[in-house]
C-alpha cells in the first residue's frame, strides 16, 4: 500500500470513527488489512467500560456494609467495656497484681494510659473474629461458582445461534432477584429484529406483496384508491431508491456461509439458496428493503469501485456512480446517498423516519403518504419514508466541496458534517414509504406477563414511533384492553393554544391526579393485584417531551416536573418511552435509579444504542441479537432471547438472592456466637485477654469447620423448586426490597447468635462449678472448658444450617456431616500429638479426655438441643400457616383466568385494524 509517493501530489483522505476497528472486530470480506493503533491505554473503550462495570455494587453488598458497621460497633464496644471494667476491677486492692502473678519491671514502668491503650488493642485482637472476614472470600466464591449455573443452564441455550447465556460479571447474581424495574429495548429485544418487508406505498398507492403472485405488485391500497397504481415511472424511481439508498454489501456465493460465521457486528446475512446471494448490512432494515426491492424486480448486484450495479425489471444492468454516502445516525434518523447516473444526472436519495423526512419535503406530498405511514405504524410495522432530489451541477459542486471540507475538518467534524447534511437534504420530494415487520420474540408476552406478576414494572424504551411501539406493547400484553393510557407526547402537548410548557404541567397534574391521587393506596411491593377492580394505567412519553421535562425552561420547575413524572410512572403498570435517543434511555434509567427508595433497575437490550442504558442500570442484560455484539459486551449478563429473562429473574435471581442473603446472615450469626463466649470469659479471667479457645480452633473455625456447609448451601439451596418459582411469579415479591437482609431479619439472627452464645458459655460455666467431671475424680482445666464450648458451638451452628437446608443433595450431606466428622478427627489429631513446633502443648489430649467424661457428653447434647430449640419451634409453628402453601392455593385459579383473558387480548390485538 502506498499512501505517499514522491512523484505524486499527496491525496488527503479523512479518517473518522467509521475507520476505527474496535476490539473484537473480525475480518469479513478481505484477507488482510493494514492498521495503526490509534490509542492504547486507560482511555480505550475497553478500559473505560471495564471501569464502569466494576462500580456496580449490589444491594446485598450495601447491606453487608451496614451490618459490618454494626458489628464493628459491637467489636469496639466490647473492647471498650472490657478495658474499662479491667481497670475498675484492678483498682480493687490485691486484684491488680496478686503475688502469684507479679508484673515484670517493664510492665510496672509503663505509663498507665499506654497500658490502657495496649489493653484495648489486645481486646480488639481477641474479639476481631466477630468481623466475618472469611465471609468476603466465601461470598466471592459463591458468586463466582454460582454464576456457572447460569452459563450451564441448558434452558438458556438457543439452538439458532448455538449459544447459551453469558455471564460477564458474577457480582450481581443476587441483584437478579431484586429487580423492581425492567427497562427494555423494543427492537431486537421485545421483537425479533428479523425484518420482513411487508408493503410499501408509492406516491400514496399501497403495494402489498403476495407470495403466491410470483413476486409482482398487487395493490390493495387505501379504500379510496382501490386497485390503482402509481405511475410506472414513480414506481421504478421508488424501487431504484430502495436499491441505491443503503450501505448494504453483497456477499456472493452465499452457500458457503454458515450462521456460525456471523460472529461479529455485521449480521443479517440471509443465505438465499435460489439467489445465491446474501446481503450484509449493519441494520436488518436495510436488508429487508433491498430484498423487498428485489421482489419487485430490482436487484442490487453490488458495489464495484464506487459503482453501484442494479438489475432492473428488464434484466438490464444499470450502473450508478456512488458519490457520497450521508451516513445514518440516530439523531438525524435518516441517511442519504448521492449517485450519478450514466446519463450524468446527479440524484440524491434519502430514507429515514417520517419525522425527519416530512419537514424536508414539499408539504403537499406529505398528506397522502402520512396516512399510510400512520396506519402501518399502528399495526406495529417499522416505517421509513423515501425521498429523492435531483441535484443540479452547481448544487452538487457546493455539496461536494462542503462535504469534503467537513470530512477533513479536524475540529467539530461531526457538527460541520451535520450542517452540510442538513443543507443538502432539503427540498426533496417524497416518493413513498415502506413498512417492515419486526416479529415479536417468542414468548415475549408470557415473559412480560410473568415479570408484571412478579411485581416488576416494565418500561419500554425505544427509538421507534409511538404507534409502532404502542402496538408492540399491546401485543406483549404490557398494555391491556382495560389499561387507561396516559399520553404525554408532542402531539398531546400541541393541540391547545397554550404554550408547550404550560400544557405539559397541566397534563402532568391531570395524570398525577388520576393515577396517583385517585388511585386507592396500594402497599409497596404489592403494586399490582390480580383483581381487575383496580384501574391500570399505562404511561406514554416521547423523547421530545422527556427532554422538555428534564430541562424545563425554568429551572425551578425541574424538580416538580420530575416528581410528578416519577409518581405517575410508579403508579403505572407499564411505561412506554418512544422516540428515545440512546442517551435519553440512560437518563430515564438514571432518574428511576436515583428516585425514592432507590429501586433496583434492570436494562435489557440488544443494540449499540442500548449500551448506555445497560451500563447505567444496576443490572445490564444483553440480548445476543442481530445488532452486533456491543450490548452483549457491555452487559453484565447476556442471554440469547428475551424469554430467558423470565427464568433468569424468577428462578436464578430468586435463588441467588435467597442463597446469598442466608449466607450473609449466617456468617454474622456464626461469628457472633463464636466470639460472645470469649467475651463473656473475660468477666471470669480478670479481663486479662485470656482466649477461651485454642489458637488452632480460633483460626480453623471459619476456615475449615464451618465454611464448607454454608458454601454448599449457598450454591445448591433451592428453598422452592425451580418449577414452582417459574409457575408462581408472585413468589418473587416475597424477596422484593431486599427482604431477607433488612434490619428485622438481621436483628433476629443477631438475637439468635447472642442467645446461643449465652447458652454455650453459661451452660458450661455452671457445669464447671465443680470441675471434677471425670469418674476418676480428676478435674478439667481451662482448655477443656474452651473445648467443650467450642464443640457445642461447631455442632450447633452446623446443625442450625442443616435445619435451614431445604434441599439436601448428596453434596450437602457430605459437607455437613463431613465438617462435623472433620472437626472430631482434627481435634483428636491436634490433641493427639506433641507438636514439636509449638511452645505449649495446651490441647494435648484435652479433647480425648473430654470425651471420656459422661458429663461433658451430656452437657454438649443438651446445649446443642437447647440452642436449637427456638429454631425448631419457629420452624414448626410457622409450618401450618406457611405462606407458601396457602398462596399457591389462592393464586392458581386466578392466574388461570388471567391466562384466558390474555389469550382473548392477543386475538383482539391481531384483529386490531386501522380505521379512520
Amino acid at each position, binding site marked *: 500500500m502506498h499512501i505517499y509517493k514522491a512523484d505524486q501530489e499527496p491525496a488527503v483522505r479523512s479518517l473518522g470513527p467509521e475507520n476505527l476497528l474496535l476490539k473484537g472486530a473480525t475480518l469479513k470480506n478481505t484477507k488482510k488489512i493494514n492498521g495503526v493503533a490509534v490509542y492504547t491505554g486507560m482511555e480505550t473503550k475497553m478500559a473505560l467500560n471495564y471501569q464502569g462495570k466494576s462500580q456496580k455494587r449490589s444491594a446485598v453488598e450495601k447491606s453487608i456494609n451496614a451490618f459490618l458497621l454494626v458489628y464493628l460497633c459491637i467489636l469496639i464496644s466490647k473492647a471498650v467495656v472490657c478495658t474499662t471494667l479491667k481497670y475498675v476491677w484492678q483498682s480493687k486492692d*490485691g*486484684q491488680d497484681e*496478686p*503475688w*502469684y*502473678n*507479679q*508484673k*515484670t*519491671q517493664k510492665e510496672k514502668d509503663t505509663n498507665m494510659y499506654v497500658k490502657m491503650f495496649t489493653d484495648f488493642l489486645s481486646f480488639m485482637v481477641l474479639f476481631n473474629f466477630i468481623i466475618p472476614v472469611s465471609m468476603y472470600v466465601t461470598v466471592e466464591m459463591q458468586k463466582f461458582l454460582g454464576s*456457572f*449455573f447460569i*452459563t*450451564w*443452564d*441448558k434452558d*438458556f*441455550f438457543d439452538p439458532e445461534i*448455538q*449459544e*447459551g447465556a*453469558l455471564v460477564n460479571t458474577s457480582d450481581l447474581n443476587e441483584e437478579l432477584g431484586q429487580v423492581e424495574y425492567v427497562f427494555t429495548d423494543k427492537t431486537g429485544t421485545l421483537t425479533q429484529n428479523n425484518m420482513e418487508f411487508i408493503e410499501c406505498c408509492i406516491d400514496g398507492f399501497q403495494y402489498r406483496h403476495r407470495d403466491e403472485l410470483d413476486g409482482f405488485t398487487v395493490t390493495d391500497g387505501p379504500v379510496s384508491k382501490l386497485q390503482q397504481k402509481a405511475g410506472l415511472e414513480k414506481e421504478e424511481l421508488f424501487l431504484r431508491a430502495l436499491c441505491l439508498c443503503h450501505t448494504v454489501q453483497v456477499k456472493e456465493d452465499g452457500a458457503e456461509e454458515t450462521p456460525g460465521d456471523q460472529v461479529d457486528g455485521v449480521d443479517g446475512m440471509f443465505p438465499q439458496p435460489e439467489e445465491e446471494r446474501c446481503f450484509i448490512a449493519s441494520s436488518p432494515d436495510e436488508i429487508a428493503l433491498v430484498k423487498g426491492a428485489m421482489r419487485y424486480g430490482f436487484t442490487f448486484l453490488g458495489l464495484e469501485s464506487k459503482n453501484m450495479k442494479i438489475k432492473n425489471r428488464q434484466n438490464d444492468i444499470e450502473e450508478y456512480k456512488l458519490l457520497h454516502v450521508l451516513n445514518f445516525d440516530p439523531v438525524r434518523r435518516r441517511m442519504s446517498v448521492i449517485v450519478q447516473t450514466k446519463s450524468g444526472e446527479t440524484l440524491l436519495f434519502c430514507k429515514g423516519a417520517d419525522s425527519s423526512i416530512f419537514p424536508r419535503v414539499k408539504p403537499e406530498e406529505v398528506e397522502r403518504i402520512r396516512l399510510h405511514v400512520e396506519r402501518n405504524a399502528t399495526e406495529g410495522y417499522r416505517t421509513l419514508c423515501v425521498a429523492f432530489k435531483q441535484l443540479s451541477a452547481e448544487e452538487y459542486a457546493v455539496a461536494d466541496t462542503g462535504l469534503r471540507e467537513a470530512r477533513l475538518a479536524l475540529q467539530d467534524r461531526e457538527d460541520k458534517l451535520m450542517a452540510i447534511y442538513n443543507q443538502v437534504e432539503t427540498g426533496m420530494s417524497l416518493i413513498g414509504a415502506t413498512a417492515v415487520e419486526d416479529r415479536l420474540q417468542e414468548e415475549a408476552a408470557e415473559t412480560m406477563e410473568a415479570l408484571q406478576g412478579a411485581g416488576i414494572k416494565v418500561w419500554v424504551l425505544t427509538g421507534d414511533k409511538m404507534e409502532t411501539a404502542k402496538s408492540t406493547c399491546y401485543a406483549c400484553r404490557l398494555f391491556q384492553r382495560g389499561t387507561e393510557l396516559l399520553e404525554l407526547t408532542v402531539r398531546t402537548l400541541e393541540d391547545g393554544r397554550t404554550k408547550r410548557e404550560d400544557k405539559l404541567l397541566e397534563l402532568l397534574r391531570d395524570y398525577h391526579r388520576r393515577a396517583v391521587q385517585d388511585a386507592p393506596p396500594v402497599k409497596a411491593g404489592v403494586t399490582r393485584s390480580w383483581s381487575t377492580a383496580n384501574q391500570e394505567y399505562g404511561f406514554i412519553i416521547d423523547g421530545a417531551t422527556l427532554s422538555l421535562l428534564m430541562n424545563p425552561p425554568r429551572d425551578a420547575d425541574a424538580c416538580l416536573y420530575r416528581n410528578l413524572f416519577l409518581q405517575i410512572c410508579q403508579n403505572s403498570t407499564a411505561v412506554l418511552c418512544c422516540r428515545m435517543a440512546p442517551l435519553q434511555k440512560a437518563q430515564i434509567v438514571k432518574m428511576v435509579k436515583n428516585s425514592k427508595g432507590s429501586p433496583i433497575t434492570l436494562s435489557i437490550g440488544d443494540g449499540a444504542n442500548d449500551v448506555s442504558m445497560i451500563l447505567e442500570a444496576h443490572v445490564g442484560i444483553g440480548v445476543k441479537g442481530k445488532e452486533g455484539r456491543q450490548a452483549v459486551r457491555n452487559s453484565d449478563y447476556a442471554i440469547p432471547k428475551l424469554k430467558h429473562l423470565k427464568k433468569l429473574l424468577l428462578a436464578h435471581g430468586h435463588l441467588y438472592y435467597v442463597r446469598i442473603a442466608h449466607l450473609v446472615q449466617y456468617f454474622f450469626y456464626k461469628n457472633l456466637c463464636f466470639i460472645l463466649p470469649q467475651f463473656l470469659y473475660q468477666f*471470669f*479471667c480478670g479481663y*486479662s485477654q*485470656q*482466649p477461651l479457645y485454642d489458637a488452632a480452633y480460633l483460626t480453623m473455625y471459619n476456615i475449615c469447620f464451618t465454611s464448607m456447609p454454608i458454601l454448599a448451601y449457598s450454591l*445448591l439451596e433451592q428453598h422452592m423448586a425451580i418449577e414452582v418459582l417459574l409457575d408462581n411469579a408472585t413468589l418473587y415479591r416475597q424477596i422484593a426490597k431486599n427482604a431477607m437482609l433488612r434490619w428485622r431479619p438481621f436483628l433476629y439472627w443477631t438475637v439468635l447468635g447472642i442467645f446461643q452464645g449465652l447458652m454455650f458459655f453459661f*451452660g458450661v460455666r*455452671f*457445669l464447671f*462449678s*465443680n*470441675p*471434677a467431671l*471425670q*469418674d476418676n*475424680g*480428676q*478435674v478439667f*482445666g*481451662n*482448655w477443656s472448658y474452651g473445648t467443650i464450648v467450642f464443640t457445642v458451638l461447631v455442632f450447633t451452628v452446623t446443625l442450625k444450617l442443616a435445619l435451614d437446608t*431445604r*434441599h*439436601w*443433595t*448428596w453434596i450437602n450431606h457430605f459437607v455437613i456431616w463431613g465438617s462435623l466428622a472433620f472437626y472430631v478427627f482434627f481435634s483428636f489429631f491436634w490433641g493427639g500429638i506433641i507438636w514439636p513446633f509449638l*511452645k*505449649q502443648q495446651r490441647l*494435648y*489430649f484435652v479433647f480425648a479426655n473430654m470425651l471420656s467424661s459422661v458429663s461433658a457428653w*451430656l*452437657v454438649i447434647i*443438651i446445649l446443642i438441643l*437447647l440452642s436449637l430449640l427456638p429454631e425448631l*419451634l419457629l420452624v*414448626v409453628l410457622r*409450618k*401450618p400457616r406457611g405462606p407458601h402453601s396457602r398462596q399457591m392455593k389462592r393464586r392458581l385459579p386466578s392466574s388461570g383466568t388471567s391466562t384466558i383473558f390474555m389469550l382473548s387480548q392477543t386475538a383482539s390485538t391481531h384483529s386490531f385494524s386501522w380505521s379512520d
Partner: protein
Amino acid sequence: MKNEGETAERPDNTAFTQQRLPAWQPILSAGIVIPGFLLIGLAFIGIGVGLFLTSQTIQVLERDYTGFDKDSPCFSCTNPNTQNCTCEITIALSELFKGPIFFYYGLSNYYQNFRKYGVSKDYYQLTGDTKSFKSPQESCSPFDFDSNKNVIVPCGAIANSMFNDTFELYHIINGTKKQVPLDGKGISWWTDYNLKYRNPSFVNGSFAKAFDGTVKPINWPKPAYELDLTDQSNNGFLNQDFLVWMRRSALPEFRKLYRRITEGDYSAGLPAGNYSLTVHYNYPVLTFDGRKKVFFSNVSWMGGKNDFLGIAYLVVGSLCVVMSVVMLIVYAKFKFSDDDA
C-alpha cells in the same frame, strides 16, 4: 468467564449443571415434630432424673480453712510472719462416707486463668530439655532468673505459685489419732504424667546434678528434684501435685484433686466418727481476698457432685413435653381452620 468457543457448545445436560441433583427435601411436619419433641422430652426427663438422683447420692464434705474469722482454727496462721504454722480442723462424720473418697483443695478468687500467668512457663524445661535450663523462655519473666541471674527451674509464675499447703487426716478413735493413708497417685491426668511431662535424665547417677546451675522457684521451700525424695517416680516435674497444679483451672473459683483415700482400712470409705485434719498452712490467699477450702467427695459415673446437669435435663425435658402439647393444640386449631377455608 467462558470464552466464545466454549459457550458455543451446548451446555452439559447433567443433573449438577442443571441444578437438578436428586435431593431430599425434609419438611418438618407436625406429624414428625410433635412426637419427636415428646420423645426427646421424655428421654431428657429420664436422663435428668437419673442425673439428679446420682448427684444426690454423692456425698460432699466441704470446709473453709482460710482462717478469716477470728474464731476459726487457722486464724493464727494467717499472720504472714508465722513460720511452719499448723492448724487443725475437726470433722465429725455421722455416717459412713463411702469410698473411694477424693480429697480436693479449693481456692477462690484465684485467677489461674490470667493470660500472663497462663503463659508463664517453659514447656521445654518441663520435658526435661536441659538446654532450656540455661535459657528459659521470656514468657517466664519475672520468674525466670533470681536476683543473682541464676535460672529458675521450673521457671514461670505457675510453677512458682504452686500450692504448698499439706494435709494429714487422722481418725480419732477413743482419743488416739490414727492416720488415714492418703494416696497421691493417679491424681493428675494420665497423659500429663506419662507423655506430656518428662524429667531430665540423670547426670552421673544423680538426679539433683541434672539441675546443676539452676535455682528453685522463689516461693518453693525445696527444689524440684526434692519434691518427693521417697519416690523417684513422683519426683521432679512428674510430681503429681505439681502436674495437677500446672493444669490451669478454668474459673477463678476452682478445686484441684489433692489425694485419694483408697487404701487400707479406709478403702471402703470413712466410717462414722471424729476426724482431725492437720493443715500445714503455708499458702497465703488473704492478700488478694482469696479463700481456701478442702473438699471430701466421692464420685459417680458423672464425676463429682453437680446438680446443674440433672436440673438442666429435667427443665429442658419438661419444656419439650410442654411444647409438644402446645404445638398439638396450635396445630389442631390451625388444621381445623384450614379445613374450614
